[in-house]
């Protein structure tokens, strides 16, 4: 029966009269929308999981040992006043790559309102020997209970118990990526060499896996052990890891710490800048390619509508003669564009929903060299992917309908209706 709106009825019946073409067009839009949603989910999922893992498992701010202003008196005199000092260094300062009197620096950092935790870290590169195997390792000396507030090892243990590290002065914890080439188990003993050439034996207490290769390539010992290995005094550390409770204020906190301590401070955004900009570029390329998939489905919409208009010029003429206005006629074909877009977008959304779940369930081999390690694809899930892709498809389809619907509105009834000229 006739729908309440004759224009919509005409639009839908013309479409359903050409089932095959209409179906193919809807399929085209559906596939386009599916590909777009899946791509957004994939790219956003990777980015979000990276950010989440970074924010949860790495320091928000790293205070390094480089000083903003050198301690040596290069600038004793004001050179603008025409006075110069010629300084000859006979001895290089050796404590330049350490943070001296670290507890004083921590106390200064803790005066920042939004800082939750500060953890001292000693970095040592060591060659470790286990049985007949030797391998270079990046060893971090930490106070486990403090560092756990920043890198959250206790929730990422795959073997052993995290607390054992702090309980045993010779404890040694190894990341899953490092453990691949150096297959030790809790309880195994490893030989390390101290700065003074002395052999030190440590005992493996646990293996952890955060999913971030940067972290999982590392090994952890107690702070004092690392100081001995690296020849640090007990008041010296390499870096301070800072966790804040307001990520938005990250940058201003880092600058403020620099002001208070004179040590350079980098936020995780600054450290990850290279990766983030590369990732943004890849994302743009993916979206750009996906854009063409939808664009092609727009051509398909235009094609169907142009055919419909050409085949229906006589009907359009008769409708005009009975008093339908130009806008009414345009509406018929704009509505057709909208119909196929909405149905196509809905179908594409359903397909994308399934596709995302399928992709998320495919197991993948974790790599040691990537930034984020995962045993499956990290697909993002948000209703906005669907909304954005559907709106885009509808927009393209409506744009494709504008030309044909204008042509339809321009049909001159006289030329078509007269029986005799």
């Amino acid at each position: 029966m006739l729908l309440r709106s004759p224009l919509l009825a005409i639009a839908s019946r013309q479409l359903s009269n050409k089932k095959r073409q209409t179906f193919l067009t809807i399929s085209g839009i559906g596939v386009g929308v599916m590909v777009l949603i899946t791509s957004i989910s994939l790219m956003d999922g990777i980015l979000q999981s990276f950010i989440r893992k970074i924010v949860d498992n790495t320091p928000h701010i790293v205070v390094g040992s480089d000083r903003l202003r050198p301690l040596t008196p290069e600038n004793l005199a004001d050179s603008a006043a025409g006075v110069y000092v010629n300084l000859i260094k006979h001895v290089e300062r050796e404590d330049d790559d350490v943070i001296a009197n670290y507890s004083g620096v921590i106390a200064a950092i803790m005066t920042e309102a939004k800082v939750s935790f500060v953890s001292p870290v000693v970095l040592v590169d060591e060659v470790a020997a286990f049985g007949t195997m030797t391998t270079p390792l990046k060893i971090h000396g930490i106070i486990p209970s403090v560092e756990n507030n920043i890198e959250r090892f206790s929730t990422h243990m795959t073997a052993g118990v995290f607390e054992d590290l702090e309980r045993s002065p010779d404890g040694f914890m190894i990341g899953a990526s490092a453990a691949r080439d150096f297959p030790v188990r809790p309880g195994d003993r490893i030989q390390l060499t101290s700065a003074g050439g002395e052999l030190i034996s440590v005992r493996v207490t646990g293996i952890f896996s955060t999913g971030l290769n940067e972290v999982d390539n590392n090994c952890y010992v107690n702070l004092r052990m690392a100081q001995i290995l690296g020849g640090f005094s007990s008041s010296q550390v390499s870096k301070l890891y800072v966790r804040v409770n307001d990520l938005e204020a990250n940058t201003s906190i880092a600058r403020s710490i620099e002001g208070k301590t004179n040590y350079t401070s980098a936020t995780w955004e600054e450290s990850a800048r290279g990766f983030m900009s590369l990732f943004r570029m890849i994302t743009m390329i993916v979206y750009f390619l996906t854009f063409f998939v939808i664009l092609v489905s727009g051509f398909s919409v235009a094609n169907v509508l142009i055919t419909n208009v050409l085949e229906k010029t006589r009907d359009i003429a008769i409708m005009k003669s009975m008093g339908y206005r130009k806008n009414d006629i345009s509406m018929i074909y704009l509505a057709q564009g909208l119909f196929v877009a909405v149905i196509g977008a809905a179908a594409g959304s359903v397909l994308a929903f399934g596709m995302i779940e399928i992709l998320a369930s495919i197991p993948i081999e974790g790599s040691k060299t990537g930034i984020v390690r995962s045993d499956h694809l990290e697909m993002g899930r948000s209703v906005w992917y669907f909304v954005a892709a559907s709106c885009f498809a509808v927009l393209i389809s409506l744009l494709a309908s504008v030309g044909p619907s204008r042509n339809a509105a321009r049909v001159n009834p006289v030329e078509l209706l007269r029986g005799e000229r």
Partner: protein
Amino acid sequence: MNMPLLQLVNIRKELSIHSDGQTISTVILPDVSMEVRRGEFAAITGPSGSGKTTLLYLMGMLDKPTSGSIFLEGDDVTVKNEEELAGLRNSKLGFVYQFHFLLPEFSSLENVMMPMLARGRYPLATARARAQELLHLVDLSDRLNNKPNQLSGGQQQRVAIARALANDPILILADEPTGNLDTKNSELVYRMFQRVNVESGQTIVVVTHDEAFAGKTNRNIHLVDGEIVRDSR
């Protein structure tokens, strides 16, 4: 009130044909003046190319004259814009063509309802009841839900007539309405027009080649080369 329903004053219609970069202008109607009175049942006849169809489309406001004025109920329609003309066609005029031109996707009933729904003049239920009445008037009560391709040529043309009557027009214009029909169906169509003319007093102007049809109307306008050579009541 003795105002004519439709009045054509010094109507001139030229057609421009573009070919090979040249524009050739052909005069179809050099200077026609005439009027149609309320309640008339008029036939316009004439040889092919005499301009009778052009005259009908000018009356129907589907085409505009090159010069001259057309008054519908005293109102100059040549100065109106396309939207206004569409409105007038919808409310005051009904068209029947040589070919039925029914919308193929819709049933007889729906086709007849189409003009009524164009401007939301009738609610859906009223439009449906009215379309049923009109199809009853053209003896097609048993074909309400048939699509055009399920109807014979004569039946299709009768649905088209019912559609022309949909908005109770004051003027019905028909272009060779029997041109495609056999004698029996032509007679049927004639009787429909006559009935509408007599019973509802609606004015009808028919362009026709059909001498028998023209002979039965109450006014004959004969056109040769765009000029009215005979106008007999």
